[in-house]
């Protein structure tokens, strides 16, 4: 138990010394992507081989380091999930990609013992071999502040976090700053909430600080329910102390002594990591009563979500922590006045809290230099969909879409052609080629009818049907609507019905206008953020791809060739041998013909189920 600032500083310098004596490191990425591709087996294999060859290695930060020791460790997500499993070698900074268990022997032999790079495992792009991670185009344009630790430290070790400067911001906030100073620094930095709306964090904190109603609460929204986003997951799993440190500082600034973290149930590892981190911080005296002898107390609690997207909305989230149905309520009063348990509450998301220690450590002047004037700092994005380099990235605010998709993301997957990118999930909108040079920041995006949201970027190629994508989001929102207010409950249902009939080839004249009218009405009248933004994907796809809607409704055609019900299935008479297998499989007896002669499909009867397609032994049946 640390009882003073000096004791924390002594611990930090001893941890740092121990970390610095590791002169070689083999870092295996244990992020979700790499683990699902077998990273843990690779880690075990390394340990087995090093043991067999008598290498002096350790799996943990050693208590008493000696000699020429090699550290084998599991880190968090390196972000370059596309080419995982990833292994990085330090101090050289070499990155090995798509590593297999069979490669471990060679890596130990050549790299760990011999000090040579195994070039065949290095990343190659356009014929160039990139040995070092930092030279790879995917990493070169990134600025990793929030994700900095993720690919470096062992997230289960508080000592490694402390050794790399962890909890220095807490120290500063406790001993060198008054609560106004903290709020001023955060306000000055221009930090805006990373959960979607972009509300200035400093203003929110000062509103809570001036309430004279105790107790107050600090709540972290870790309910990353936005389908296609996993940035907060990485922070919670791979650098949990960074977020906890940010929350304690918010507590000091606002006069709160309890923090609640609301984590999505689909992230069991994040829950485990946060629990462990809280336990470690409490044991060291960085959480709990009388932190570092200052008399200040802060306790942390974890609540697991139970699967309701609407709980990402502030008042629904606090209702859920209170053990109730997670339904939003009318505002005002706002969360800053009447939040959790009806008390003043600071509610920010994971990434917002993760920014706090960086700002306190480096100062607002330094922080403001990153990003744009009104959107400072960096933003993490989950880059997914039909993109070459799917993964987790972090770039300065204001980076253009072109840089993100082409320089970092490597362009569209499998040589496909770019069509659109969906940003902001079910609350967001789509961006097209005309937006390639649009800076990604709060204000530029809201001008074109999109939002930064939590940061999911889903790339779509020409084969993706935009009407179907809009239908997909509406299906999601409709299922997740809590049912409290009529515009959202009924409106999303009606919009979904219309979209369903359009993709089924039963769209009617006037459907586009009706969708717009419904969408605009829901946006104006729904109770909470989920409802107000529910029509976003539909309205934005109509705006940019109205001709696709028209083709579905009037020509009964899907230009992308994606909507099953709008396809025509035909039999190629040249290839058909007249075996009758298709006719026997057809559930509606639409296929007729004579044995050993080409069969035909009666288009009036065909329900486009595709049963014939998969069963034809001669590949004579085609969809167009």
């Amino acid at each position, binding site marked *: 138990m640390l009882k003073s600032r000096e004791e924390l500083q002594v611990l930090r310098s001893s941890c740092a010394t121990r970390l610095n004596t590791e002169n070689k490191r083999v870092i295996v990425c244990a992020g*979700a992507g790499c683990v*699902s591709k077998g990273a843990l087996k690779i880690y075990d294999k390394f340990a087995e081989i090093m043991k067999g060859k008598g290498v002096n290695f350790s799996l943990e930060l050693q208590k008493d380091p000696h000699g020429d020791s090699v550290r084998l460790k599991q880190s968090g997500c390196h972000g370059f999930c596309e080419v995982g499993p990833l292994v990085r070698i330090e101090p050289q900074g070499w990155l090995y990609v798509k590593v297999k268990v069979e490669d471990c022997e060679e890596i130990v032999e050549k790299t760990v013992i011999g000090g040579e790079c195994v070039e065949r495992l290095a990343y190659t792009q356009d014929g160039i071999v990139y040995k070092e991670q930092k030279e790879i185009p995917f990493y070169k344009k990134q600025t990793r502040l929030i994700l900095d630790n993720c690919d470096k430290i062992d997230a289960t070790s508080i000592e490694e976090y402390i050794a790399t400067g962890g909890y220095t911001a807490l120290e500063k906030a406790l001993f060198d700053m008054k609560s106004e100073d903290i709020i001023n620094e955060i306000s000055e930095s221009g930090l805006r909430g990373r959960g979607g709306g972009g509300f200035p964090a400093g203003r929110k904190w000062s509103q809570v600080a001036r309430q004279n109603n105790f107790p107050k609460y600090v709540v972290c929204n870790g309910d990353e329910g936005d389908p296609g986003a996993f940035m907060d997951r990485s922070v919670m799993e791979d650098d949990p102390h960074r977020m906890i440190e940010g929350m304690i500082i918010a507590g000091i600034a606002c006069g709160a002594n309890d923090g609640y973290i609301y984590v*999505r149930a*689909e992230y069991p590892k994040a829950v485990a990591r946060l629990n462990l981190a809280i336990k470690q911080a409490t044991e060291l005296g960085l959480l709990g009563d009388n932190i570092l002898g200052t008399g200040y107390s802060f306790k942390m609690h974890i609540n697991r*979500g139970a699967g309701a997207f609407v709980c990402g909305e502030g008042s629904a989230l606090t209702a859920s922590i209170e*053990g109730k149905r997670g339904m939003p309520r009318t505002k005002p009063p706002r969360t800053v006045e009447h939040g959790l348990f009806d008390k003043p509450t600071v509610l920010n998301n994971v990434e917002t809290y993760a920014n706090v220690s960086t700002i306190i450590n480096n100062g607002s002047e330094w922080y403001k230099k990153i990003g744009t004037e009104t959107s400072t700092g960096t933003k993490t994005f989950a880059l*997914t*969909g039909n993109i070459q380099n799917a993964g987790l990235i972090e770039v300065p605010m204001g980076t253009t879409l072109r840089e993100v998709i082409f320089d970092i993301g490597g362009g569209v997957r499998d040589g496909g052609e770019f069509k659109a990118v969906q940003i902001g999930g079910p609350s967001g909108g789509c961006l097209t080629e005309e937006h390639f040079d649009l800076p990604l920041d709060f204000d530029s995006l809201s001008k074109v009818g999109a939002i930064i949201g939590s940061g*999911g970027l889903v790339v779509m190629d020409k084969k993706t049907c935009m009407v179907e994508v809009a239908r997909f989001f509406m299906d999601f929102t409709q299922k997740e609507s809590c049912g409290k207010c009529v515009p959202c409950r009924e409106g999303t249902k009606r919009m979904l019905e219309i979209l369903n009939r359009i993709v089924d080839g039963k769209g009617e004249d006037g459907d586009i206008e009706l969708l717009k009218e419904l969408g605009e009405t829901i946006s104006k009248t729904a109770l909470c953020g989920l409802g107000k933004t529910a029509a976003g994907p539909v309205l934005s796809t109509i705006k940019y791809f109205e001709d696709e809607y028209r083709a579905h409704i009037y020509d009964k055609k899907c230009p992308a060739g994606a909507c099953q019900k709008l396809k025509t299935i035909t039999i190629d008479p040249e290839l058909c041998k007249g075996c009758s297998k298709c006719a026997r499989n057809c559930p509606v007896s639409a296929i007729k013909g004579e044995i050993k002669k080409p069969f035909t499909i009666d288009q009036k009867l065909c329900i486009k189920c595709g049963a014939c397609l998969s069963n034809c032994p001669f590949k004579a049946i085609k969809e167009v």
Partner: protein
Amino acid sequence: MSTFDYTVLDRAIEEFGNAESSLISILQSAQEHYRYLPREVFPYLAEKLNISEAKIYGVATFYENFSLEQKGKYVIKVCDGTACHVRHSVPILEALRKELGLSEQKKTTDDLMFTVETVACLGACSSAPAITLNNEIYPTMTPEMAVALVKSLKENG
């Protein structure tokens, strides 16, 4: 129903406390143990937490993760988050349902071996399309791989 074992609930109440705010955590413990919420849970918790059965039922039916029906030994979740959706997760779901004779309404096989459901984003978007089998992630799946997985589970019981 006098044989119902309430110790799981008692332990959860002990761990989380008997305030209303503990309700969701207690229900989660029960769900983890039984893989669903048996009806005996409701009157018992209503008494212990001093809240109405209707309120508990309201909470249990509001959240997607609680099930009032028994689930299979193998719970397969097909991710239908945006990233998986655009990389064709729907054919995987359809193939699994066809293989097991399930549908959107009928999620669990009669022998209580398999449950197939969808989940809105596992956060494994870089491994799209992904499915989970009892919480373990299987990356970059195809309909054929999913069916093969089910077949191997059937053979091994």
